[in-house]
C-alpha cells in the first residue's frame, strides 16, 4: 500500500487546495508525489508544469522524479531553482 505523506506548499498555492498549506497525498517517490498533487488538486497542475523542485528533509531535488519519500520526511514543494 502506498504511504500517505505530508507535503508543504508555498502559501500562494492555498487558493488551489481549499486554503491548506499542508496537504496529504499517497506517494512513495517524488514523481508519484507530483502526480498525486496534480490528480488531487487540479489547480496545481499549471504550477507543477511550470517547474517545481522538491525539498526532502532540507535537501533540494531540482528535477528527480525517483527520489523516495516517506511519512517521516519533511517535504516542501518549491519553485524550480535557476541561477546565473
Amino acid at each position: 500500500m502506498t504511504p500517505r505523506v505530508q507535503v508543504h506548499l508555498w502559501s500562494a498555492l492555498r487558493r488551489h487546495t481549499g486554503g491548506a498549506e499542508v496537504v496529504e497525498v499517497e506517494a512513495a517517490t517524488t514523481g508519484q508525489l507530483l502526480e498525486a498533487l496534480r490528480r488531487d488538486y487540479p489547480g496545481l497542475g499549471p504550477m507543477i508544469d511550470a517547474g517545481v523542485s522538491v525539498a526532502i528533509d532540507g535537501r533540494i531535488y531540482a528535477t528527480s522524479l525517483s527520489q523516495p519519500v516517506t511519512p517521516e520526511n519533511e517535504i516542501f514543494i518549491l519553485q524550480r531553482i535557476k541561477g546565473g
Partner: protein
Amino acid sequence: MALDEYKPQSGDAELENKELKYVGTTPDRPDGLDKVTGKARFGADLSLPGMLFGAIVRSPHAHARIVKIDASKAEALDGVKAVVTRADFATGLEGEYGFVLENVMAGEKALYDGHAVAAVAATSALIARDAAKLVEVEYEVLPHVTDVDKAMAEGAPVINAAYADASVPEGMHPNVVRHHESGHGDVEAGFAEADLIVEDTYVTEAAHQGYIEPNACVAQMGSDGKGELWVCTQGHWYVQKHCAALLGMETAQLRVTASEIGGGFGGKTTVFQEPVALALSRKASRPVKLALQRSEVLRATGPTASASMDIKIGMKKDGTITAAEGTFRLQGGAFPGAPMEFSAMCAFACYDLANVRQVGWDVVSNRPKQAAYRAPGAPMAAFAVESVIDTACNKLGLDPLEVRLKNAAHDGTKASWGPRYDQIGMVATLEAAKAHPHYSAPLEPGQGRGVASGFWFNHGGETSVSLSLSEDGTCQVSVGTPDIGGSRASMALMAAEVLGIPYENIRVTIADTATLGYNDVSHGSRVTYASGLATIKAARAAVEKLCQRAAAKWGIEEDAVKWEDGCAVPSGANAGDFDPLPLAEITATMGSTGGPISGHFEATPEGAGVSFGTHIVDAEVDQETGATKIVRYTVVQDAGKAIHPAYVEGQYQGGAAQGIGWALNEEYVYGEDGRLQNTVFLDYRIPVASDLPMIDAVIVEVPNPGHPYGVRGVGETGIVPPLAAIANAVSNAAGVRLKSLPMNPPKILEALEDQAGDA
C-alpha cells in the same frame, strides 16, 4: 553508472574525510596563456570560407504594432544575400519556447526599444548595417510603460493580456503575471512583541551583467538540413535545444560548439542572435557571423530585473528579530520570468525567524526580457532587508554583526523559504567577519562602515563528463559546462586528486554537443559542484579499470588491489608482495591488456549545498558633491571547499566589483519615449580599476555533505551582499539612509538636501 550509486541520501553520503594533495592548491590557469597572448578564440573570432555578416533591424519604439515590413530596398542592395523576419522561424511554439522566439524576433508587436524585427546578411558587416537601415518597417505606436510600479497600476498599457498564470489572484492588472507567497509563523503576533518596528520601501534599477565580450556567433546551415554553430554561451546544449526548436529542426541535426567566453554572469544562459544567424544562413546557404554591438547588448539582451520592495522588521531591544515581512515587485521586461520568487525566498534566508512572510510579484513592462545575473533576484532583496536591519541596529544602538549573529540561521534552522537547513556556514562567515581586522579598524572622518549578509541556493543539474587516459599516462577530460570561472583548472585538480597524477598531466576540454552527453547550462553556481562531482566519478571509474589491469598482471583478485598516490598497490599483506604499479606503466600497455582505459559519468547531482556570505565595506562620501569612494572592502564567504583558492578569491572579488557598480552607478535610464538613453559604456558606467579598492577575500570552509570534497558553488553568493553592504556604508557615511539604487551623486545630494530640509 546508476543514479542510486551516488545520490546523497543524507548526511555524509558523499563527503570524504581524507588528506588532499592537489585540491586546494593554486596551479597556473590552463587558459591563462592563450588569453593574455590573444590566442584564445571567442565568439566573433571564427571565420569560414564564403562567410556573410549579419545585422539586426531593431524597433525604435517601446511598444508598437508592426503593420508592415518592406525589405525590397535592402534586398536590392549589392552584396545582400538574405533578409529574415518572423516568417522565417517555426510556428506554433508555446510556453518558454514561444517567449524566447517572440524575444528573438518580434511577431505582431515590438515590445521594447531594441526589439528585433528583421535581420540582414551581406558580404560585409558594413553592407549588412547599411542594408538594415533600408528595411522599411511601418509601426503603429502604442502606449508604453517601463516602471514596475506604474506597470501594475490601474490604467497601465497592457503588454499581453494572456501572460498571467494561475498563481495570480483575480483583480490584479494584466501586467502582473506571476505571484509568490511563503513564510511561517504569525508575523502580526511577532510585530506585537517588538520594541522597534522599521518599515520602508526600497527600489533598485535594472543593471546589465556587463560582460566584456558582446554576444557573437557563427552559424552554418547546410542544404541537407544539418547545422553548425560556434557561439559564446554559458550553455551550448541549451542553445542547441532552443535554436533547433525555433528553426523547426531536429535537435541532433544542430551541432553547437562553445567558444571561449568573455564573461556571462548569467546573461548568456539564453539565446538572442543565435537563431537569427542560423535563419540567415539557412536562407543564404552560406555561413553567417552575427556579432552584436555594445548598444545592442544593452538595449536587447537581458539585464537583471528592477525592483520595488516594501520591508517591515520588528526587533527587540536586545536585537532579536521578532517578525519580518517583505513584498517584492520585480519588473523583468516584456515577458514573464522576473525572479521575484528568489527575491522573496532569499530575502530573510540568512536568519532564524519564528515569524516571517514574503510576497513576490512578477510584472511585465516595455523593456528587454530580463536574464539571470548571478543569484537572480537575491541582491536587490538583500539590499532592502539588510538596509532595514542596519536602520534598526542604528536606532537601537546595536552592533550590526552581533545582531546578525544573534539571529543567524544555523544547522537545523527552519529556513524562511520552508525546509530545514543541513550543514551551513552562515554563523561561520559572521564569526570570520567579526574577527577580521577590517571590522575593528578605525574610520577616517567622512567615512562610514557597512556590513551585510547574503544567501544563495546553488544548483546541480544534468551533467556528463568523459575522461580518457593516454598511453603516456596523461589524461584528457571532456566536460560540457563552458568555463566561465576557472572550471577547467578545478576539474583538472579534482581528476588529479583521484588519479594521483600531476595537474599538468591533465587537459580539460569543453566538448561540443555532438561529442558528449547532455549538460545543463553553466549557471546556478553548479559547475565546480556538479561537473566536479562527475569528474571525480569518471576518474574513479577509470581507476577501477586500472586496478583491474594490475590485478590481471599480478594474477590476484581485483578486490585485492587498491589505488594509492597514482599507483596500483596490493590492498594488504595477504594480497601478495608486488611493487607499486604506476598509472603510466598500466596505460603504456593498455592496448594489449584489455583496450583503452576511460571513465565517464552521466547523472543529475542533487546535493548542491546552499551558501552564505558576509561583506564589510568602508565608504567615503563627499557631502558637497555626493561623490562616493569605496575605501576598503572585505568579502567573507563559505566555499565548502575551495578547489583552486585563487579562482575562488576571484569569484568573491568579482562579485564585490560588480556590486560596487550596481550600487553606485549602473542603471538603465529610459526616456519619456520609452527608449534606453544610455546604450554605451560611456553612459552606462561600470566600475573601472580606479573605482575599486583592493578587495580582501576570506574563504570560509564549511563542507557540503553532498560533494566528495565538500564543494559549494561560489559564483553567485558574492553578488548578494554588496548592494546592501555598500548602501549601509554610504548611509552611515552620509548620515542619511539611501533607499534607491544606484546611489549616484545626484541621489546622495538629494537625500542630504531632503534631510536638511526636514531638520
